[in-house]
């Protein structure tokens, strides 16, 4: 068993090239996840996040490197690793025809719980994830959020030490997304280590203690979300002026209130400037623009997108160095 300070997931120099692809999916992937934390892999589609998760969850045999999860080697002790992990993939991996209870009982039986214990565990998890009322309904009638919650519950039969979540909220509406986030935080409170992948900066920011930015099969930046956001430059205010001739004047006002760097686009009559995340700064900008007598067509606070994270970390937009 590993000590508490040691990494519960440790990947070193993992390489994987699928036979059908020319570029490696993992190209020297390194990762260390501390126990009891939420660690996010953030990256665009095709960055290698899913392959990384599948490699760490014993599903992909990699070409080179070493992965240890919960004290066991993924390649040589896969069965032991499987007893200690849970995985929730991009699609809800459930039996659509069976009800929620039957699904959980089946997975519990396959975790080698005795029938009675399987029934008890299923009932407990249904209760905990707010699915007791829908227990007998076939899963194909569940909403997206309910499926994800049941999917999560199915990964938690044996209270795994490490839970892998591959894009847990992709395709969910905001309410379902909040439900999943709440469930994940609850798990971490109970001591589970969570490794999740996401394309959403906001999700990484909300959930993760540490974020690793993944591109082209390796980690290109890592740190707490705060630090990452600082490097990216945080939120920006975006002002669209009504009169094209006033773009320069707006730039001058924003420069005075917000400071550099300004992003001026005369074609769309838009000026962007960095601001803190708080609304009070936006109010300050609005006042300054008003005092200068500028007619504003649109003003908005924009959080940095994944694209901007990449732009500031790598100097190019997502998807550019590919192919």
């Amino acid at each position, binding site marked *: 068993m590993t000590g508490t300070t040691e990494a519960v997931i440790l990947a070193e120099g993992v390489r994987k090239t699928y036979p059908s692809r020319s570029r490696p999916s993992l190209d020297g992937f390194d990762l260390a996840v501390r126990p009891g934390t939420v660690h996010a892999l953030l990256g665009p589609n095709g960055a290698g996040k899913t392959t990384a998760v599948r490699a760490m969850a014993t599903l992909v045999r990699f070409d080179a490197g070493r992965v240890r999860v919960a004290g066991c080697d993924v390649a040589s002790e896969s069965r032991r690793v499987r007893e200690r992990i849970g995985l929730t*993939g991009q699609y809800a*991996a459930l*039996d659509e*025809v*069976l009800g929620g209870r039957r699904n959980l009982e089946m997975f519990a*039986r396959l975790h080698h719980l005795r029938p009675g214990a399987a029934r008890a565990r299923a009932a407990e998890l249904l209760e905990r994830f707010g699915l007791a009322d829908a227990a007998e309904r076939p899963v194909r009638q569940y909403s997206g959020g309910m499926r994800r919650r049941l999917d999560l519950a199915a990964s938690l039969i044996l209270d795994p030490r490490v839970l892998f979540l591959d894009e847990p909220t992709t395709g969910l509406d905001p309410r379902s997304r909040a439900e999943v986030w709440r469930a994940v935080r609850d798990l971490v409170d109970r001591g589970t280590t969570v490794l999740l992948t996401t394309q959403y900066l906001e999700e990484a920011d909300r959930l993760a203690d540490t974020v690793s930015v993944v591109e082209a099969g390796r980690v290109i930046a890592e740190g707490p979300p705060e630090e990452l956001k600082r490097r990216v430059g945080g939120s920006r205010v975006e002002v669209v002026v009504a009169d094209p001739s006033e773009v320069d004047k707006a730039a001058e006002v924003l420069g005075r209130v917000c400071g550099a760097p300004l992003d001026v686009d005369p074609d769309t009559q838009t000026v962007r400037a960095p601001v803190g995340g708080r609304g009070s700064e936006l109010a300050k900008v609005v006042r300054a623009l008003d005092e200068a007598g500028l007619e504003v067509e649109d003003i908005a606070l924009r959080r940095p997108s994944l694209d901007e994270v990449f732009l500031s970390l790598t100097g190019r937009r997502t998807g550019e160095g590919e192919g």
Partner: protein
Amino acid sequence: MNATVRRLGWALSDTGVVARRYLSHLVHKPDELIGTLLIPVLAVLLFGFVFGETMGAAAGVDDYRDFLMPGLFALTMAFGIGNTTIAVVSDAGRGVIDRFRTLPMAPSALLAGRSVSDVVAGVVDLAVLAGMGLLIGWRWNEGWPSALAALGLLLWLRLAFTWIGIYLGLVVRSPEAAMKFFSLVFPLAMVADTFVPTSSMPGWLAPLAEWNPLSATVVAARDLFGSPGVVSDSWVAQNALLMALVWPLVLLAVFVPLAVHRYRSAAR
């Protein structure tokens, strides 16, 4: 010793859990069963009442309905491949197989469970079809033990075909692609001793049809049911019972390892 016994026990238990899962599908979603039976049941009616008279006369068979039923039984066993492939491929597509693979369960229990449930579904298929047959006047003439042995041979063939279906389901990537494979089952099931005796086929085709695994089972089943048939004097046709046992064994020896390897190898 103890550990091995326990492992084996869990493997059986895992297989049972998976088989129960698929069997519940038959109850909750009977369209799968109905889909497999639709063509054979229609065939009973079409060939029994529309084409039968002519085909029987042309083929030199007195009672075409008695001749037809064993062929349709085997045909239904072959059509089961489609359901198996589609079930496996949709499990793979939705990540269900990945979840099973991350469980500490016996690695091949998922596939074994599927094949067990397929054989049980085969029993249901045969029962429905036999009921249809009895309605249109089909009878077996050699007593219960022989009839049960014939049904056993048919299920043995179904088991072998199931593993072909499982392997295909692990190889193809979408249900649509699986359907394309399935259209190949049609000629395979026709170029056999199913609807007409192989002796009525062109000289170059007859050996192909005789060596078709389906033919061996059909000819052996006809013999056991005491149904009329035109048995050619080729070696395969004369040793149909032996071949009806050997063919599925050969198919299993090929496709079980292929499927298990495909399932366990992580390079999907």
